[in-house]
């Protein structure tokens, strides 16, 4: 799979402050790529470089194999975190203007707008001014403007902020649909559950450095502790514990369960899960047996607080 975007050794400094310290990323074509990091990590600086709003002090960015150049803006759709529209301008005119700035002809822009306005059932907003719309409605318009010119790469910075759950879901479905049609997506957010749900690749930037990058599952595998959460109904707790501690490291844990069972977390070490299971079955009825998979949230917090 080739890359839609390659960031190579990018350094960006503002005065004495280093915003990006030798950051390299590869964003595969057709992926939904989660760009994670705490506030002030350098995500926005990186996104602005990709959008050619600022230029890096050193390093290169390749878009679809070519060094980034002004023509590429028409192939990128960018929804910034700090976003807004001209308050006194009419919705339709504003969308046309922004679409034309992205390089669409007026006819093409009108055609695309018609499609999206019908899809979102917002045709009646065409002659309204933005100041007459609610915040959520304005956000919808912004999303339409971002995807209108059928970009190859979508960069979404906190796309769900300002949306109610219904509209957030609507936007999420649109993003997934666009992705299925071949659009690559860079997704910068603090909402880990949406990362977990949507992203197939992630990168974590912290204090201007890239700390983690890869396929979501690979990253998770890398962070897995090789431990299991088990639940068992047994009368012989002491015997079980004796048997288990012979081979494994055992600790108390907690998970939701409807039974009055014994809840344990077992570190496998260099043994395999079947050995654990066979011991357990000797002592009673196993009610719970799950590998402990680290969530993106866990990985995030663990990495950042290191």
């Amino acid at each position, binding site marked *: 799979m080739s890359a839609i975007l390659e960031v190579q050794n990018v350094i960006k400094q*503002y*005065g004495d402050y280093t915003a990006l310290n030798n950051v390299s990323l590869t964003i595969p074509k057709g992926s939904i790529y989660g760009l994670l990091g705490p506030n002030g990590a350098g995500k926005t600086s990186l996104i*602005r470089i990709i*959008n*050619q*709003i*600022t230029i890096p002090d050193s390093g290169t960015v390749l878009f679809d194999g070519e060094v980034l150049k*002004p023509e590429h*803006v028409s192939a*990128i759709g*960018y929804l*910034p975190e*700090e*976003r*807004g*529209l*001209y*308050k*006194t*301008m009419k919705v339709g005119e504003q969308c046309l*203007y*922004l679409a*034309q*700035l*992205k*390089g669409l002809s007026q006819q093409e822009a009108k055609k695309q707008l018609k499609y999206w306005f019908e899809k979102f059932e917002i045709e009646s907003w065409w002659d309204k001014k933005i100041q007459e719309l609610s915040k959520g409605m304005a956000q919808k318009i*912004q999303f339409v*403007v971002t995807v209108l010119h059928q970009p190859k790469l979508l960069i979404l910075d906190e796309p769900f902020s300002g949306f109610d759950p219904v509209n957030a879901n609507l936007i999420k479905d649109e993003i997934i649909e666009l992705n299925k049609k071949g659009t690559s997506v860079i997704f910068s957010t603090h909402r880990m559950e949406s990362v977990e749900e949507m992203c197939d690749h992630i990168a974590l930037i912290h204090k201007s450095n890239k700390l983690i990058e890869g396929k979501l599952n690979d990253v998770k595998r890398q962070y897995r502790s090789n431990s299991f959460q088990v639940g068992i109904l047994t009368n012989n707790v002491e015997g079980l514990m004796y048997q288990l501690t012979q081979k494994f490291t055992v600790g108390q844990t907690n998970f939701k369960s409807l039974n009055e069972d014994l809840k344990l977390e077992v570190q496998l070490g260099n043994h395999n899960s079947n050995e654990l299971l066979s011991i357990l079955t000797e002592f009673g009825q196993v009610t719970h047996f799950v590998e402990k998979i680290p969530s993106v949230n866990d990985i995030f917090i663990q990495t950042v607080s290191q």
Partner: protein
Amino acid sequence: MSKLTLIIKREFIAKVRNKSFIVMTFLSPLLFVGMAVLIGFLASMNKDSVTQIAIHDEAGYLKNDFKSDKHTQYVDLSEMPFAIAKDTAGKNYKGLLFIPKVAALPELDGKVEYISDDSPSMEFITNVERVINAKITKENLDVLGFDTEKIEKAKAKTSLKLSKFSGEESLKGLNEIKVAIGGFMGYMIMMFIIIYGNFVMRSVIEEKTNRIIEIIISSVKPFQLMMGKIIGNSLAGILQFMIWAVVGALLFFIASSFFGLQMGASSAVSPEMMEQAQQAAGLSKVQLYINEILNLPLTLMLVSFVIFFIGGYFLYSSLYAAIGAAVDSETDSQQFLLPIIMPLMLAVYIGFFTVINDPHGTVATVFSIIPFTSPIVMLMRIPFLDSSHYWQLIVSIILLFATFAFVVWFASKIYRVGILMYGKKPTWKELYKWMKY
């Protein structure tokens, strides 16, 4: 359509559709005319009022020398005792002119007193002093045995005749006309820069506070956006000026044809009288003035106006754009605006105080070449320029446009960084740091 054209178009339409723009375009000329009428009316009201001044002349030296006219009426209270006259004057008149009795008229020098609670106008004081001086001088001359009539006859009353080397007669007051024309052009440029520079700044701030700026500059270069703004707003301004010019010309045409008709009607009654009246009123001189104005380098003036207008406006409005980008709200902009307004004010003062006295003096010449003041000062000088000064004009234009290029580059650097900075008011030091980003 190129992106720059798109931006210019949007800025222009946004400006022109704005209600305040429409209101200002049609209201300003009315306001202007209204103000002129009001000032005229107030002035005439002042003239119509009659000031009554009492005179208490103990010995009757001067009371007949103060002649009442339309504006001042002298009331003789010499018959009353001084205390009563003073009392009466205090109640009923604006003031009391007290002329004491002295041994001989020349001793009156310095003894005449004007009693009033209002401070009299300079004109009144000069007038009273002139009358007293004339009387005393005449008395002194009489005492010394001079024949005052002969002296009066011997006095020369010359009036300097002005002409050019080409032999044409030139007119007094032409200097003032030139200054008025130059001053008007310079003043227009200053007003335009301040008003439309502010529009550019507000437009930049609006994009910042709307948070649309990042969406836009992910499509276009900040420099394009800035130039689009400056050009779009200036086009709106030029449209406004053109509307005013057309409306003004129309009004002028209507007014002149109206008065022309009246004149024609009266001349139909008695053509000979008209001719006499014209000569008496010195209408031929008016013709001469009009000719003189037409003889001014009108083409040069017009072309220079356009050049300096564009250069000056672009120079300053790019600074306005940079300031708009640096701040979050208009209230924060004050500290940065002062250094912009200062050279403009300086230019206007220099124009009015030095160009009028000495259009080619050192001060006027230097400031007409320095780029930040040249659009105003040089325009005021242009009606006076002849071919020996053209090199200054050319140097001035070259410097102006070179500075313009530099300032736009400088402003676009601040603009580029500033539009993405939120939350705090930058200091001068930070602006300097932005240059290096």
